[in-house]
């Protein structure tokens, strides 16, 4: 057997699982000082199963799909057993516990490694695989986060476990919803639409003046790289504490990327295609709407995607400079001050979900409108 990542992982799983048998799982209970070797039956079962599956993986006896299913089940049973063993008033985790964590992790990695190696011609299967592997990865980040934070007793002020964050989200839905409305639905969405719209319109307006284009393009490129978010205090002074000042920051931040990208997009139609429109005696506006704007769509969508992130950042950061007592940025900065870190993480989780959904919606729209572009029709 050659030394591949796969064999290293299988051996790690085996050693980890065996370690669970040999070294103590817990050191010191809630009421006694005795060394607990087998406080949890589920962990014992997991250690046994892990040894078996790791051996199967090393010897390569089982058929591929069967082994994959076994690895998957055992790894996740292990995760369940490890997390539920953290539930009671247990003592400190001993090296045996971490040894089993390593075993579970190695098994999960083996699953990912085997799934990643699957080749499929079926489009649906490809899609599912493309989702399954990162989903597995994300889930194990959460599992390890939970185990490490609770296993090492990391104080919640530093890093709360995902379960605590989830519980916090469940209990503060009204607050989160109010913050979401204030920051996302008002500041971000309005600012985004106005900023992107203005960038697009200005790019089209100056399209006929090559002088303005040559003057604005370098400036637009430069401004796109500047820390524009710094205008936030000025906007707060000008437009007050409520959402209009945040929307103003978002407008300024999103304007230039859209301007620069649209200008580049409008210039991207090939000379031959422009000549073609000339031979039809097409007017400026006909050429614009039938050729140059469709040709610019991939660029425009690129700007829309960049701006979706910028808009969220702009609105949240602008709230650090003063807000009414609602909004995601406000909540983050005040709850950090009160050391309510789980609430901060709840806001961050919401920001992450909102950001991904926002981006995903734009990416989906892009697929609909630029289905013809090589970068999209290839995938």
């Amino acid at each position, binding site marked *: 057997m050659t030394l591949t990542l796969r064999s290293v992982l299988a051996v790690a799983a085996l050693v980890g699982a065996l370690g669970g048998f040999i070294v103590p799982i817990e050191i010191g209970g809630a009421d006694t000082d005795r060394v607990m070797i087998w406080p949890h039956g589920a962990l014992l079962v997991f250690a046994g199963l892990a040894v078996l599956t790791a051996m199967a993986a090393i010897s390569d006896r089982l058929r591929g799909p069967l082994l994959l299913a076994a690895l998957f089940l055992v790894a996740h049973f292990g995760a369940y057993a490890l997390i539920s063993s953290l539930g009671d008033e247990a003592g400190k985790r001993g090296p045996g516990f971490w040894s089993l964590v390593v075993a579970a992790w190695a098994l999960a990695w083996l699953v990912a490694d085997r799934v990643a190696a699957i080749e499929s011609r079926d489009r649906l299967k490809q899609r599912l695989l493309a989702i399954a592997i990162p989903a597995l990865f994300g889930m194990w980040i959460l599992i390890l986060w939970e185990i490490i934070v609770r296993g090492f007793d990391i104080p919640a002020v530093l890093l709360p476990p995902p379960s605590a964050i989830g519980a916090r989200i469940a209990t503060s839905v009204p607050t989160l919803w109010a913050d979401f409305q204030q920051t996302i639905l008002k500041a971000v969405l309005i600012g985004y639409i106005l900023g992107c719209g203005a960038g697009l319109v200005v790019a089209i307006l100056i399209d006929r003046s090559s002088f303005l284009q040559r003057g604005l393009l370098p400036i637009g490129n430069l401004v796109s790289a500047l820390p524009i978010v710094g205008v936030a205090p000025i906007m707060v002074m000008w437009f007050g504490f409520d959402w209009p000042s945040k929307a103003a920051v978002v407008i300024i931040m999103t304007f230039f990327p859209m301007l620069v990208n649209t200008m580049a997009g409008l210039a991207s139609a090939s000379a031959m295609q422009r*000549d*073609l*429109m000339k*031979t*039809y*005696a097409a007017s400026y506006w006909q050429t614009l709407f039938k050729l140059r704007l469709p040709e610019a769509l991939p660029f425009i969508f690129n700007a829309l995607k960049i701006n979706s992130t910028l808009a969220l950042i702009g609105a949240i950061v602008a709230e650090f400079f003063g807000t009414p007592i609602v909004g995601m940025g406000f909540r983050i900065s005040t709850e950090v001050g009160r050391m309510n870190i789980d609430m901060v993480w709840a806001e961050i989780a919401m920001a992450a979900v909102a950001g991904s959904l926002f981006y995903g919606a734009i990416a989906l729209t892009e697929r609909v409108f630029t*289905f013809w572009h090589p970068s999209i029709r290839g995938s």
Partner: protein
Amino acid sequence: MLQRMTPSDAQNSLDRVIDIKGVSLTFETNDGPVHALAGINLDITQGEFVSLIGPSGCGKTTLLRVIADLERPTTGTITVNGVSPREALLNRSYGYVFQAAALYPWRTIAKNVALPLEIMGLDRAEREARVKRNLELVDLGDFAQKFPWQLSGGMQQRASIARALAVEPGMLLMDEPFGALDEIVRDHLNEQLLKLCDKTNKTVVFVTHSIPEAVFLSTKIVVMSARPGQIHDIIESELPRDRTLDVRETPEFLDIAHRVRQGLREGHSYDA
């Protein structure tokens, strides 16, 4: 000019679709002026198939672009259908086919063919009728709802010919339309193009750098030479109009091909 025309001249100028007199075109570049065309005189009459052939840089594409009003000559006069190229363009008197199909990837084949018709402002029924007719003319009737990138290169170029024909012009201007295709597809398309011209009696100006292609297709072959771009020789072909690919093995064909090659060689030696 009109005053000096005799009745027979007037008759001639009706047949005469393209009339080029003393046309020169000089591009100003950073490295000094480039004489793309110098003293071009050329008449093309209705129904002729004229090939422009010559080495790269001889101005054959530029000459075609001058006819299409994509370039303006520095000196000389040119009339297309008796009017200036600009007016001819506005009258939609020609269809232009480029080296590449230049189809819009976001439009279906049918929509691509309809593009010039939309710009002309034709109504929907007329557009659909013309799209159908011209797609069938190039054997693409079954592919109307496909997107260009789902078609082979040869089919794309046929679609672009259908697009040029949809304007229903008297004249086709073609700039190395089959240059990017492989020889087998090219032969096939050449044959089809010839049939199509017979059927529709269109005037064609065809830029190419392939001698067999020029001889096979043309009634008149214009051999050009480079630096400055000028006409070296004009060869009238006596081959029958209803030719097939077999004609390429006949002595007459080889004779004309020989003359064209001779002309190209002489034109080239001016450089040395």
